[in-house]
Structures are given as C-alpha cells and as structure tokens.
C-alpha cells in the first residue's frame, strides 16, 4: 500500500497526501485500528517537510478519519465514516473515474454502462 507525491501536479503536496490516505481509508484498504507511519517517516520517504505531512494528518484527524494518541501514534479511526467525508471521498473517486473515461475517449453513457456492469450498484441508484 503506497502513496506518492506528484511534483508536476498543481495540487499542494499536503492535499495529495491527505486525499490518498482518505481514499485508502474510505475504500476500506486501511482498516480501523491500522497504524499509519509516523509523520517523520512518511515525510522523509516522500522527501517532504514534516510539517506538510503533519498538516495532512491534522486534516484527516479533523475529518474524523484518523486518531492520534500518544504511544500508539496515528491510527485509522474506529468510527463510521462521517457523511460529509464519505460524500467527498465518493465525489473524488468519481472525478478520477470521469477523467480516466475522458482520457480513453469515452462518453458519459459509456461511463455509466461500465459502472453498472462491474458492480452490484445499479445506475438508477445514483438518482436518489
């Protein structure tokens, strides 16, 4: 399980880190109780300033996705995902999917059909 920082992206590095960890938490790749690396470790591995990673962790904590507690460090929160954070995560995932479909030359209908064909979620489920 990895995260990366793209130097050419206009998105600030702290937001890149935050969004990727949020994505991993919200899609279940990082389960409740999973320990995250220390700020220092992640910052050094990504060649970022510790403050940048600390800011991302703080934002994740404020969103209720992670908990920081002394000796155990930063762990994925053992709570149901807040509605707002979940909506934002889904929107971000959808945005990434849309960009990929556009890159491949697909249309909106192609995207919806593909989505319907790969999972249990029915397209009409999006209406509500």
């Amino acid at each position, binding site marked *: *399980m*990895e995260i990366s920082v793209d130097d050419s992206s206009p998105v600030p590095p702290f937001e890149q880190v935050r969004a990727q960890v949020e994505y991993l938490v919200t899609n279940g790749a990082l389960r409740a109780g999973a320990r995250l690396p220390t700020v220092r470790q992640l910052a050094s591995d990504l060649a970022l300033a510790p403050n940048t990673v600390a800011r991302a962790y703080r934002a994740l904590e404020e969103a209720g996705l992670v908990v920081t507690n002394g000796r155990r460090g930063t762990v994925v929160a053992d709570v149901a995902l807040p509605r707002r954070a979940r909506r934002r995560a889904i929107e971000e995932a959808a945005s990434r999917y849309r960009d990929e479909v556009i890159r491949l030359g697909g249309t909106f209908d192609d995207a919806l059909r593909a989505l319907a064909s790969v999972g249990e979620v029915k397209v009409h489920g999006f209406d509500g």
Partner: protein
Amino acid sequence: MAAVAPAVALAVLWRGWRRPGHGFLDVWQSRFDVEVPDDERAFVTTRLLRGRRIRAAGVAVGVGVAGVPSYMNLIDPSRAADFANPLVGNAWMFGATVGGLLAEALVVQRPRVRRATLEVRRARDYTDRRFVIAVYAAVPLTLVLASISTILGGHRWWFSWFGVAGAGVAAAGVALGLRAIVDRPALAPEGIARDVDDALRADGALRLVGTAVALAAMGVSTSLPHGAPGGWSFVHVVFGYVSLLGLVWWWSLARDVRWSVPRARALT
C-alpha cells in the same frame, strides 16, 4: 607503554580504513538474506565501508584516550594515577558506541522515487529488542548500584558513577541511533532497492546495539559498590563477567547474528 595505545589506535584505523576483500559482500548478503544486484554493489560497498570507517575512527580515538595515563606517566608521573579510572580505561568502548551512532546519524540518503509505503518501520524490524531493553535497563540498575556505593563509601566509591555514565551513553546512543535508522528515508517502497535498504538498516542497528550492550555491561560491572563488605566479593566476581559477556554479545551481534528483515509487515 605510552607507545602501545597509539600503535593499537593506528592498527584499528588501518584495519577499518582498508577496502574489504572480494568475499565481503557475499558474506554480508548471506547474513542479511538479501541479494544485491550488480548495479547496487558499488552503492552497498561504499555505504558499508563508510560506516566501518566511522566506527573504526571512534574506536581509534577511544583507544588513544585510554592511553592517557601512560602519556601522563611520561609528562608528569605524579599525576598519572589521576587519569587511571574506568572512564578513561574504557574510552574505546565509548568511542565504539559514539562511532556506531555517528555511522548511522551521518548517513545522507534521498528517496529515489517520491512514493512511500504506509507500512510502519520499527526498530524491532532491524534488531533484537531484548538487547535494546537490556541496554535501557542498565541505566536504572547502575543508578541504584552507584547510589549504594555512594552510601557505603569506601575506597574510590565515585568510580561507580563512571558506570552510570557508561550505561547512559549506551542508552542514549541506542535511542538516537535507532531513531536515525528508522526515520531515514527509504530508497524505494518496494523491490530489491527496498530489501537492500532494509538490510543496510539492520546492519547498522546490530552493530550499534552490539557496542551499546558491551558498554552497558561494562557500566553495570563498574558501578558495583566498592566499599561493600566481605560477602559482596562473590557478587563482584560474578558481575565482573558481565562486562566480558557484553563483549561476547558485541562480537556476536556485530558480526555473526543473521538477520532477515521482515519483508511484508502487516498494518497493525
């Protein structure tokens, strides 16, 4: 006698400085269960050699300091005894520990890619935590022993506090060194570069902990109460072997212990 310490220091320095033989890297690979590809061999050899040189320099400086009483004997024989104490006598162990710490703390490593694994690196991935605990435990133990020695008084009771200094330097060296090892940027989040990186961390950690164990054991042995009554002489004999045991552990941890860094750590 005054020439012995500098001669030993130069011998240590020469042995640490020379380039290792051809089989050196093969032994290292086998010890750390890692296969270094051809394009990484120069990098690994340079890193290992650099660490060895810094550690050798630490020991050499310590050996040089340990010879201070013999130098003083030439300059002012009446003051030579003032410098003959466990702190000066065991300066080579202090030098080895500080050298081991510097060898890790001075490593400059940049990640090759801006990708990071979310696995948590821990000191226990790279060394046996029982030895680390033993080093930390030596600090309160030496404090208690030195306090008893102070209360009992007797001939050169203050020598016991040199043992506390030894244990303290060992514990600080381990704490700072392991932190430097764990926090150092990873070369890569996966693949052979990561395996090589992990093996280099384990190598540094085992060598540092080895010297710290020896120094801590010497500290415990030195801090035994000097003014203790008769029954204590047996304890002195037993604890005298602790420092010997520490040296054996050092040798074993720094050279013989095989260590395979866990490659797939669960996110717990």
